[in-house]
């Protein structure tokens, strides 16, 4: 894994070098000459010499300058005690370092910290130099050709707007062509201006910051608000301006906060959907509640864990193996439960409930005995981690996005299975009228088994999804089973659409209530709501109607 990463990074750097080369070998060569002559100054004791070196390196404008200056700022720039060669060190753990030539970026081998100190000496800096470095780096990065570097530079400045960097920024704004970067830069400038002593500048800046989504700006405005509320001897126009800017900011971030809540709710709903859909179809077809259904989630999650243990070198692909594996494992266990126990309890739904509860206890204890009662953590693949930032107030994590997408895919697949295949047709027939289906020659026992296997298998792949959100433990299923029941009760039975709407609305309702009532109270409120809901719709939102439904 790690090796893969470093490899790809090397590749990138190499590519970078190639690009730079093609831009103009002559230019770079002269830059390198400048740098190499400046590097010699770093071994000098005089800070004046070092300042000269920094200036000439920075003025070259070469991307290598950023690496060198950053290393200097972080205390990672060393020189050889004898030949005065400059190197950049990289911490690779356990007190050893990787040494690199800053210009060629080639590794010069690894050294322990003892060896390092014996041969090399750190290039020392003082506070004044640090200031110079910050300024030069800001200028270098903010004028960088790479948009990403410019963006992150501006973002860094926003965190700590200082007058020296803002001056650089003012120039940069004028030159900037990219709209996104330009916007961020002007916000930075405005943030600095908002602290200006000149009332007019301040007013203009505050007004332009109105409705800004950056948390830093919100903090800044809040600080200004408290400052001016306490202190009345300032210009009268300032406080209302700050307040209206703050209100607008709060309103907007509040809106995005709600969007984020909806997203969280939908992702919770997706997990509930995966957990409940199997429950709903088995209940629809066979009229039994499978209390061991939660354990199928748990087993699916453990399957993911086991798969990752088996293939530790290709975690990136582990989920693609885990999904079918979990489906097969839990599906087979489901069929086993149906063949071994439930078949004998046909027509006695309450007894089935008890027997499957017993099975759930056995499965939990079995997992506890095999894997230990402690939680296991499942690794999230690279492509699922991180988040996508829509704007500073709204960023959605990839794992949740994938889970929503995955749940929808499963739902669509299931709908197709039910609507388009012979098995689906038979299943629907058994749901509507078991005796008639039997009379038509459908092997209802066979349909029962496969339905049960299907329901359990879907719970299993739900477990794979769940393993990406929480830790995997023997009680994982318990946490979701009551909620899944509520989804089935709410959405009605034997109707995928109902399960979908039920799961999503419960998920969203839970997440919406949470900020106001806290997680526990939110859950209680939802439970109470459902108890009241079935007063009006005892058979759920999308129940079958008519005489047949009574039986």
């Amino acid at each position, binding site marked *: 894994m790690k090796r893969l990463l470093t490899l790809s990074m090397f590749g990138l750097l190499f590519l970078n070098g190639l690009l730079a080369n093609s831009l103009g070998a002559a230019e770079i060569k002269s830059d390198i000459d400048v740098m190499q002559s400046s590097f010699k100054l770093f071994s000098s004791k005089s800070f004046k010499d070092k300042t000269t070196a920094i200036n000439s390196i920075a003025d070259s404008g070469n991307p290598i300058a950023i690496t060198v200056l950053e290393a200097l700022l972080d205390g990672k720039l060393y020189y050889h005690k004898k030949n005065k060669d400059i190197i950049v060190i990289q911490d690779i753990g356990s007190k050893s370092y990787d040494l690199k030539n800053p210009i060629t970026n080639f590794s010069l081998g690894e050294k322990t910290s003892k060896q390092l100190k014996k041969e090399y000496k750190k290039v020392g800096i003082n506070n004044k130099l640090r200031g110079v470095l910050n300024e030069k780096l800001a200028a270098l990065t903010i004028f960088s050709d790479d948009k990403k570097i410019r963006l992150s530079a501006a973002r860094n400045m926003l965190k700590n707007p200082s007058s020296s960097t803002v001056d650089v920024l003012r120039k940069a704004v004028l030159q900037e062509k990219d709209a996104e970067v330009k916007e961020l830069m002007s916000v930075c400038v405005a943030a600095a201006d908002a602290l200006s002593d000149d009332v007019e500048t301040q007013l203009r800046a505050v007004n332009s910051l109105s409705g800004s989504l950056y948390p830093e700006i919100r903090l800044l405005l809040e600080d200004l608000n408290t400052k001016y509320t306490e202190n009345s001897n300032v210009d009268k126009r300032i406080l209302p301006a700050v307040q209206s800017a703050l209100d607008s900011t709060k309103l907007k971030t509040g809106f995005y906060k709600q969007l984020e809540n909806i997203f969280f709710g939908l992702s919770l709903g997706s997990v509930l959907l995966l957990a409940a859909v199997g429950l709903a179809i088995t209940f629809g077809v066979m009229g039994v509640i499978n209390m061991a259904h939660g354990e199928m989630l748990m087993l699916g999650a453990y399957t993911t864990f086991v798969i990752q243990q088996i293939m530790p070198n290709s975690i990136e692909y582990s989920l693609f193996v885990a999904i079918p594996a979990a489906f097969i494992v839990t599906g087979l266990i489901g069929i086993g439960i149906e063949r071994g126990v439930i078949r004998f309890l046909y027509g006695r739904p309450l007894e089935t409930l008890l027997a499957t509860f017993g099975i759930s206890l056995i499965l939990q204890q079995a997992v506890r005995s095999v894997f230990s009662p402690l939680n296991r953590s499942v690794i999230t693949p690279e492509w699922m981690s991180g988040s996508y930032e829509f704007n500073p107030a709204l960023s959605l994590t990839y794992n949740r996005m994938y889970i929503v997408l995955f749940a929808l895919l499963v739902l669509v697949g299931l709908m197709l299975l039910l609507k388009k295949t012979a098995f689906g047709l038979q299943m629907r027939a058994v749901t509507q009228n078991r005796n008639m289906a039997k009379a038509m020659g459908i092997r209802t026992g066979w349909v029962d088994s496969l339905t049960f296997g299907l329901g359990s298998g879907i719970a299993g792949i739900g477990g794979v999804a769940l393993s990406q959100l929480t830790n995997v433990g023997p009680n994982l299923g318990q946490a979701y089973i009551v909620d899944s029941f509520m989804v089935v009760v709410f959405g009605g039975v034997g109707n995928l659409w109902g399960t979908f709407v039920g799961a999503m609305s419960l998920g969203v309702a839970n997440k919406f209530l949470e900020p106001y009532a806290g997680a526990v109270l939110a859950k209680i409120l939802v439970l109470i709501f459902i108890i009241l809901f079935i007063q009006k719709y005892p058979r759920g939102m999308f129940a079958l*109607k*008519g*005489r047949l439904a009574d039986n």
Partner: protein
Amino acid sequence: MNGVSVSFDGFKAINNLSLYVKKNELRSIIGPNGAGKTTMMDIITGKTRPDEGRVIYDDMVDLISMSEAEIANLGIGRKFQKPTVFEHHSVYENLKLALEGRRKVFENLFFKLTSEDDDKIQEVLNTIALQEHYKRDAGELSHGQKQWLEIGMLLMQNPKLLLVDEPVAGMTKQESEHTAELLTSLAEKHSVVVVEHDMEFVRSLANRVTVLHQGSVLAEGDMDSVQNNQKVIEVYLGE
């Protein structure tokens, strides 16, 4: 019953149905499967709520908004299509539970059987020819005996209107003749509505017949006129 409609998931089970039954009338209702016969009974007894229309009982009481138990206590008794008796109770116990009056919780908790009650039960046992079986569990009875027990339970309730759904299904010829006699004699004191498929049985009742089709009345009259009705023949024999 006036202009009653009900639909399940878009399917109109009852479509603008109007039906009037007089006091002490014996009325037979026939119709092909899915004509809405049982649904009509569900509506009268309050089991199903209609989408529109009114059900008036005894000239003034609107049954639409009442619960099943309230309707039963007004004097409307019902025999279900599938014989529905308490299978784990003895025949005697079944009739005891059907005794008229005393429907409240605490009345039942401190219930004591009077000799009049016992007389009434014995009388009904005689009527339904189950006096020898009174100790047996109702679940052990034959299909026809269960049908009678259910009718006997209706008699215990002493209702003014009896709704009888397929009373002779699964009965031998003899049993069904006996049932016809029983229902005819009942019509002297009660109004009786019988739903039945068995044409011979309906003929033996010799009374007014209503034909239902697709949730509304297709024809009404005595058995002969109904059987010669062109529309009825079409419905039963296909186009």
